[in-house]
């Protein structure tokens, strides 16, 4: 454990007053941006198990708690499965909870993730994305987060450290909204963001408190425990005595996911008024308005794609970027609206839905299939296990797809960029 007052000293050294009273600008990593957001959100229980590259998120939180800067309980558990199980119990009683994990830690949580979503608990978790073994890799790709997409959790991907800070605070607002009541994962690339220092403006505590009222659980568990209930009993196939059965509850969960897109945008609007920053809601366009070719990506893929737009336009390809922030629920209508005027779509995936193609590419196709004028779509697998995904890859891939689009070529095999020669 750290000595008392360490965080405060660090804060004094790093912090610079921002333009608005009570705010400060700090030079911090993506991991610490998440920690400061969790502190500002007045989280009451943190339960986590260390795993690279996530560990600094909860290390910082344990410093805050030890120093008395944050009024919360830190539960040191023996595994990620226990971390999520203990947060499920804590959240049931109506307290605000948080955890963070990566890669195999997330996979070890898998079963509990389904229970958290099925019980409709607004748990917020940071997934600091990292490749999945075998073989071992500690570097980034999106395979871990993407592999959990069918558990019922919302997933939001971030592109910079300020977005991480803002999104974590917004995530609690969205998760705890009574139209939603779902767990939310805030995902960001390991190392590329998690260990990279950027200036981040922290809001004042009063501002965050105004945005984020205390959490009220739908389970209404009273402190006196006079009216005990059991949670998640065995349900029979059909409804009984007016109570919904399994299928109705799952239908309500899916409806909540569908509603959550609008709730996210509403929360973002409110947060934007408060902070002066708006990250675009479910999707964000970059030079897309006059584009004919759209490059679609999440996290580090879309931020890298932006660096290629100038060169692509100079070579005669009118390209723009669509960043998918909300991966689950997949914002089909928002994607359709954003891409309605383009003829060609290039998707870069830092993940593979093994046996099919990149997950984001497949879902982008789903969103556009029934569009009045569906564009030509082709995707690439890039940057797995931390392999550099470069501006040259973006340019190379986009030019390939523009050529393929002319003949409407159908490629059932996946195309990988950045492999070793001869592979």
């Amino acid at each position, binding site marked *: 454990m750290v000595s008392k007052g360490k965080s405060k000293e660090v804060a004094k050294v790093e912090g610079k007053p921002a333009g608005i009273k009570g705010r400060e600008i700090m030079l911090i990593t993506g991991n610490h941006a998440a920690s400061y957001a969790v502190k500002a959100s007045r989280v009451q229980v943190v339960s986590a198990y260390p795993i690279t590259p996530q560990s600094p998120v909860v290390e910082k939180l344990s410093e805050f708690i030890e120093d008395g800067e944050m009024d919360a309980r830190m539960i040191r558990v023996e595994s990620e499965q226990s971390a999520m199980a203990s947060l499920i119990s804590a959240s049931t009683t109506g307290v605000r909870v948080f955890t963070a994990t990566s890669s195999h830690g997330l996979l070890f949580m898998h079963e509990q993730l389904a229970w958290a979503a099925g*019980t409709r608990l607004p748990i917020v978790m940071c997934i600091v994305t990292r490749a999945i073994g075998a073989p071992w890799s500690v570097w980034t790709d999106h395979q871990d987060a993407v592999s959990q997409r069918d558990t019922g959790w919302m997933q939001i991907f971030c592109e910079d450290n300020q977005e991480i800070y803002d999104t974590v605070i917004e995530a609690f607002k969205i998760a705890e909204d009574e139209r939603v009541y779902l767990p939310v994962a805030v995902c960001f690339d390991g190392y590329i963001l998690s260990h990279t220092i950027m200036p981040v403006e922290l809001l004042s505590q009063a501002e965050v408190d105004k945005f984020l009222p205390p959490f009220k659980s739908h389970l209404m568990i009273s402190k006196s425990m006079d009216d005990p*209930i*059991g949670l998640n009993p065995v349900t029979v196939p059909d409804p009984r005595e007016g109570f*919904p059965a399994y299928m109705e509850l799952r239908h309500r969960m899916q409806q909540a996911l569908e509603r959550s897109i609008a709730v996210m945008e509403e929360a973002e609007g409110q947060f934007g008024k408060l902070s002066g920053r708006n990250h675009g809601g479910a999707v964000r366009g970059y030079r897309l308005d006059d584009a004919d070719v759209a490059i679609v990506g999440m996290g580090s893929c879309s931020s890298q794609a932006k660096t290629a737009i100038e060169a692509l336009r100079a070579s005669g390809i009118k390209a723009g970027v669509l960043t998918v922030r909300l991966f689950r629920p997949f914002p089909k209508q928002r994607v359709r609206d954003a891409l309605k005027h383009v003829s060609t779509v290039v998707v870069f995936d830092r993940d593979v839905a093994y046996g099919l193609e990149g997950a984001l590419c497949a879902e982008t196709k789903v969103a556009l299939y029934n569009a009045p004028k569906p564009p030509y779509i082709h995707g690439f697998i890039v940057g797995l296990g931390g392999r550099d995904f470069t501006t040259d890859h973006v340019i190379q891939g986009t030019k390939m797809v523009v050529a393929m689009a002319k003949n409407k070529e159908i490629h059932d095999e996946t195309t990988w960029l950045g492999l070793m020669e001869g592979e």
Partner: protein
Amino acid sequence: MVNSRDPKSTIAAVQHPTEGEAGNTGTWRTFKPVIDERKCILMKSPKARCHKCWLYCPEAMVTRTRPPKILEYCKGCGICAAECTHKAITMEKE
């Protein structure tokens, strides 16, 4: 307001203590917990806040009262007897 105790607005599966499919689950049991009020700390000390039997019961079948009472759906698992710090609960054959 979403309230999961209300069937119309519930979003999670919630159960209340009630009779099971094949009648009272308590009728299955082989052993029943019996509380010795002379040993129960709640009865010995007015300031005691023990209630461990109530807290640990997986079926919410122990009341949070002085003395604690065992309700009719108890299946006789014996957790309360095992957890009681004062050994005030014994499992007796039905």
